[in-house]
């Protein structure tokens, strides 16, 4: 079965410290990977995407993520966080084709709280 696991439901971090939000997926077919951010009472905004090519992808607001096929991971990182980064972060996977067609999976989210 396909799934997305975000290992940390809550991550507190001090302002200007680095942060890593972890995401692992399971899939037997090809995948496309995404990270989204959700601010309170808003929809989701795309942070970055991996479709193909370089496994290190850079997104908006200084975030980056690395696709590791052998570890089936797509962890999100930022070297120095700001108060404004406080939000909910979702890892998402699109699995391609197979018997059930394209499928769309989101993790349960990681709540990032930046402490002044």
């Amino acid at each position: 079965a396909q799934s997305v696991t975000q290992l940390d439901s809550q991550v507190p971090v001090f302002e200007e410290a680095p942060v890593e939000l972890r995401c692992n997926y399971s899939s037997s077919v090809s995948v496309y990977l995404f990270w989204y951010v959700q601010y309170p009472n808003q929809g989701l905004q795309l942070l970055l995407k991996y479709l193909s090519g370089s496994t290190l992808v850079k997104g908006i607001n200084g975030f980056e993520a690395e696709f590791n096929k052998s570890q089936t991971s797509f962890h999100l990182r930022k070297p120095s966080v700001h108060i404004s980064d406080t939000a909910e972060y979702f890892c998402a996977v699109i699995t391609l084709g197979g018997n059930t067609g394209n499928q769309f999976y989101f993790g349960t989210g990681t709540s990032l709280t930046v402490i002044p």
Partner: protein
Amino acid sequence: EAGVTQSPTHLIKTRGQHATLRCSPISGHTSVYWYQQALGLGLQFLLWYDEGEERNRGNFPPRFSGRQFPNYSSELNVNALELEDSALYLCASSQGAVQPQHFGDGTRLSIL
């Protein structure tokens, strides 16, 4: 460029009633997706429409249905509402099935 718009913002219903949620995609986007975001459960994929056809659906009962119109807008219909249907319903659109999805701000459905 206008983003994905959803209406209404809030919807309050009682058990057994019917709800209709609407979504207008970004201009040029042909794929529309519906998700349910219940408290503590993340986003659960509901439905995917592309070019007017239902392409796939998630693990939800048949009382969750929808359609996509010729202008690519979409509506989600939920029949025989149950208390556990209370959630934020998010609509997203994309230019293609594997392109990034752009989300609306959602419709918060509350069942009393």
